[in-house]
């Protein structure tokens, strides 16, 4: 799948943080951080697929491609991942 110009977050490896639970729902998913008690709704099923599969891919971009996220949606998904990273829900793959 052809990919757009490289952006920092999408080209890094990520994973769901250890204290986080992800629960799929018909509308997407619920993601809860046991440490911060923060609860977030993921409002699309593809976003759940991306988040749940982050660890299995070298980069977030690959996870998005594998989840079938269309090229033009990548910026939206990147922004979602930025929000999740800011909330501590996802961490870079090399983080302990």
């Amino acid at each position: 799948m052809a990919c757009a110009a490289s952006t920092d977050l999408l080209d890094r490896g990520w994973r769901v943080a250890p204290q986080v639970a992800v629960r799929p729902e018909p509308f997407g998913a619920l993601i809860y951080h046991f440490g911060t008690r923060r609860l977030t709704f993921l409002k699309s099923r593809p976003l759940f697929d991306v988040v749940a599969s982050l660890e299995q891919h070298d980069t977030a971009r690959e996870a998005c491609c594998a989840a079938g996220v269309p090229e033009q949606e990548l910026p939206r998904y990147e922004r979602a991942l930025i929000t999740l990273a800011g909330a501590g829900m996802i961490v870079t793959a090399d983080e302990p």
Partner: protein
Amino acid sequence: MSASLVDQLETGLDAPICLTWELTYACNLACVHCLSSSGRRDPRELTTAECMAVIDELERMQVFYINIGGGEPTVRRDFWDLVDYAVAHRVGVKFSTNGSRITAERALWLAQSDYLDVQVSLDGATPEVNDVIRGPGSYATAILAMERLADAGFTGLKLSVVVTRENVPQLDEFKALADLYDAQLRITRLRPSGRGADVWDRLHPTQEQQRELYEWLLANGDDVLTGDSFFHLSGYGAPLPGLNLCGAGRVVCLIDPVGDVYACPFVIHDEFRAGNVRAPGGFARVWRESELFTDLRQPQSTGACVSCGLFDKCRGGCMAAKFFTGLPLDGPDPECVLGHGESLLATRGDAPVPKPSVDMSRRPPSRACDESPLTILHAR
């Protein structure tokens, strides 16, 4: 919150997001407004093993968080073990307490625990206001618990207040009290549930106070929790933070001390009882297949409210508030911001209202039995 997501949540989820678990009806206090009519222990309480089995189920279902209350949950001997067990099984815990069992040692233990939240209940910023509702000495007990927790280095404490006519003027003081003990203030709605029905007429906020409360939340609500219990006030203007919808039977529910599952802790009545965790299939089956919850997850009839422009915001208010004041569930909330509930209440006058199905109060229940020998004596 988008309209479609609210709709999705109203049709229910495969598992609750969080739930209330009343662990015991036993309580050392006798608060006048107790929503669970607590006081005496029910001998049929779930055993320790049964509680752990429920926790195992919650873990499998990925219920993220439980709010443990009662009665006074800390009077159960296995309470601290159950809390440990839940946390070890990926179920976050908050427990609600009047503070009477929070010793200095226990406060230290709590400070060292992870994924555990504590909520101390108080209904007056001063003993004069508080103790009339919660009993003599209860203010001092709560403050002592908060002091001990602060001294022990506990973080994330919540101070939980039920808003009444008597304490609306104290909102700022409550905030100051919470700040003093490094706690987060939580204010919630008084419902005419349990013993709350006996005091609701004189204790529920006036319309004017409701407005005041709403404005105060808009101004101060950034770090004040509400349990989304004031969504009926959203008709005043901008919606308050939270889902702004009734979660009962859809995203939350109650498990009571004997394992009965109700739509929420404010409707302990057969009409809203979905089943029991001891039945085959346990809690999961009740949540997913009970007739009550299936019904609640259908689109609700809006009846008299259908033509009101504010319905989208208030969503008809609280079914517990309507049920226990004898109002129809498809009509206005008794505290409808437009006063429609008040008018409707006036038309029904003194007609009888539903009574809770469980009353473990330690006082003789004033409503249960009419055959007092004194009545017979006076009738002669």
